[in-house]
């Protein structure tokens, strides 16, 4: 376990390992995405009250779930960067932030499109929507901070601090629907006890959540590889690899 973590910190080892990983993960991610989207769009029954507009749930919820999970990953990488000064953690933060921002953006935009026919408004200053908007700004803040510094170590430190401070927002997002009871309904899927959603809608939703997790992993790894390639372009190991391929 520890030797695996130790090896993850080595750019040449990570580059080779992630190449193998992508070969499996990319087809899996694309397949589950297609299955999930088609299932949700065409096979799932319509909601008896909302009609067909609820089909947006199959991208809205997975995007939001993975945007939140991505923030844990970002904050954990920030912690590893601050405490153990692992370079690969800086690379990971840099790779995660734009993906998290894009997923939060998807969650907000699909929520707005869903809100129009359902609530009658594109946007409301609901507690959950507002806290998700703050999440988007946190992600964008990390992206911007990385660009703002010339010194990579200083940039990583600032981003790590921002991402750790931003974790305050995460429980607020989770609890927002319970603390401020408003337009957003409380969670329907529960790990313990009966879920308040029918199996015909639950299964495609779970497939889509898995698909978004897989896509998140794929894009983060691709971003890390792209970043490693450009920072190590003068390194012997990369030149050997490129020369041989």
């Amino acid at each position, binding site marked *: 376990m520890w030797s695996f973590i130790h090896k993850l910190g080595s750019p040449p080892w990570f580059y080779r390992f992630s190449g193998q990983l992508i070969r499996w993960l990319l087809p899996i991610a694309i397949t589950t995405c297609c299955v999930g989207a088609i299932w949700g769009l*065409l096979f799932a029954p319509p909601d008896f009250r909302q009609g067909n507009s609820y089909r947006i749930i199959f991208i809205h919820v997975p995007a939001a779930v993975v945007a939140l999970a991505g923030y844990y990953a970002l904050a954990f990488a920030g912690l590893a960067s601050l405490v153990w000064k692992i370079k690969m953690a800086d690379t990971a933060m840099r790779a995660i932030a*734009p993906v998290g921002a894009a997923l939060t953006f998807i969650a907000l935009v*699909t929520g707005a499109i869903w809100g*129009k026919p359902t609530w009658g408004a594109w946007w409301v200053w609901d507690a959950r929507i507002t806290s998700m908007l703050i999440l988007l700004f946190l992600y964008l803040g990390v992206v911007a901070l990385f660009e703002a510094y010339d010194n990579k170590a200083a940039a990583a430190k600032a981003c790590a601090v921002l991402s750790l401070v931003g974790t305050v927002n995460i429980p607020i997002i989770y609890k927002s629907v319970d603390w401020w009871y408003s337009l957003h309904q409380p969670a329907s899927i529960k790990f313990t006890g009966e879920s308040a959603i029918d199996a015909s809608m639950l299964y495609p939703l779970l497939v889509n959540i898995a698909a978004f997790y897989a896509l998140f992993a794929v894009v983060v790894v691709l971003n890390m590889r*792209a970043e490693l390639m*450009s920072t*190590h*372009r*003068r390194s012997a190991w990369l030149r050997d690899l*490129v020369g041989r391929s």
Partner: protein
Amino acid sequence: MAERSSGAVLVYFDSFAAAWAMAGHGPFVWSAYGLTFITLAYLIFTPLRRSRMTMLSIRAELKRGAPNGRHTSSQSVANGAGAQREDVHAP
């Protein structure tokens, strides 16, 4: 897809037109899926393109027989860039 909703395949809609219209919710549902698809495709292709550009430029350098720098880590590159920048500002 027509006439199948009562049969073995459980596609909910009776026709392509019905699936497109979604009883009036079509524009909302399809635009949400379309936007998501575009965003996800952009996320996947951006790093692939960036990696490819770097790969091509390294290959071109190797072909030109450019100095096969034996720097071994990103540290040296980062410091090198910093040093160059300082040189510019030096009197």
